[in-house]
């Protein structure tokens, strides 16, 4: 009983969810996309605070710039083009940044969201999850450049 192989390191094969792997890879892609974001930023439709159902948001909360865009939101043409070029994420997935750094969100079965910063409860909207992540970070902590996946993306703390 309880005899098993050890979990294997990154170099070994792993019987793991392909979806998760893909999500992690997708994060690296979004980090790349964000590197060129100044060109694109002006094209993001602006929405007022409280527009929680909106497919995008862009606000300052506790001194942090929060921006988000749902993958199936109809953005400007060149943005769609770029998203496709960088392998578009799944429909309905959010790309969220805090001060330009990616915040990975996950979806719960009830439609709520949790972030990599705040992983043990969920929030009704992506914007609320992003604000909660800022609350959790407090004044003295920032997200990693790579987003939520830790060392897999090659960017360490």
């Amino acid at each position, binding site marked *: *009983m309880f005899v098993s*192989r050890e979990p294997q390191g990154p170099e070994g094969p792993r019987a*793991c969810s392909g*979806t*998760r792997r893909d999500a992690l890879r997708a994060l690296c892609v979004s980090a790349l996309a964000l590197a060129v974001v100044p060109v694109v930023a002006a094209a993001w439709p602006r929405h007022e605070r409280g527009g929680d159902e909106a497919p995008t948001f862009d606000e300052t909360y506790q001194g942090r710039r929060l921006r988000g865009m749902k993958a199936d939101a109809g953005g400007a043409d060149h943005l769609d083009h770029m998203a496709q070029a960088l392998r578009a994420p799944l429909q309905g997935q959010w790309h969220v940044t805090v001060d330009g750094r990616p915040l990975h969100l996950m979806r719960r079965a009830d439609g709520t969201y949790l972030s990599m*910063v705040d*992983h*043990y409860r969920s929030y009704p909207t992506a914007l609320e999850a992003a604000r909660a992540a800022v609350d959790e970070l407090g004044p003295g*902590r920032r997200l990693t450049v790579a987003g939520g996946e830790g060392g897999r993306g090659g960017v360490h*703390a």
Partner: protein
Amino acid sequence: MVAYTRKDVSTLTRGERRRFVGALLEVKRRGEYDEFVRTHIEYYVSDGEKGLRTAHMAPSFLPWHRRFLLDLEEALQRVDPSVTLPYWDWTRDRTTAGAPWSEDLLGGTGRPFDQRVMTGPFAYDNGEWIIRESVTDGDFLTRDLGRRREPLSLPTRQDLDAALADPVYDVSPWNSTSAKGFRNKLEGWGSGRGPGSWRNHNRVHRWVGGHMVGGASVNDPVFWLHHAFVDLCWSRWQQRHGAGARYLPARPPRVGDAQRGQVVARHETLPPWDLTPDQLEDHSGVYRYA
């Protein structure tokens, strides 16, 4: 092999505390610890996403973490065979001055500005606990015990009893929206807003704060003490409800069920191990709780 004993952290002798901490620091120094952090991040698949869920929001939450704890415990025992994982009974040891947070064990809460842990063996300045796998860019361990800005209390005996009283292990849809069943009541996913919507296991992660509330929660060694108690609760639940208190689902969800292929049934393999939940239900031959 004689089963070894996992003890309540508040009963450890000074020597036991020193050896436990020493083994953790050595596993970290060898580079093995960060692999545990990565594994936990990788297997945290949320139930609004497609794919097999094993570690969270799934029936196998309990056996997955049981085997995960055994892997760490074996790594510790390769350093020092006398070491076993202690558990933290958060229904009894409820304050920021409690046993886990003593200077010679895990150290205390983080400082207000950036939640950096400043005391104990895992404080950054000791140079032996550098965070390498994290969502945030500091390489120091963080905590915010009790959540200063928006305080909350640890789960109570009554909160835990509400989970233990449920005689059914888990129910369809076998995820974070399962309204009944011991597993989700212990894991602690509720519905709606407010403090009632995160319970027991989830609430403890939140009470500790800092790294423990994020995807890289394994960075805080209290993760193991917390999950050892969660593991103990599974045993307690089995004892309370008798031989019929088995892991569910016994068989995979039927064709057409949205959860088919997304959860592990009793006799299916539980990645990343070549083990089934059935093989992990009884730990009495390996360890026991004192």
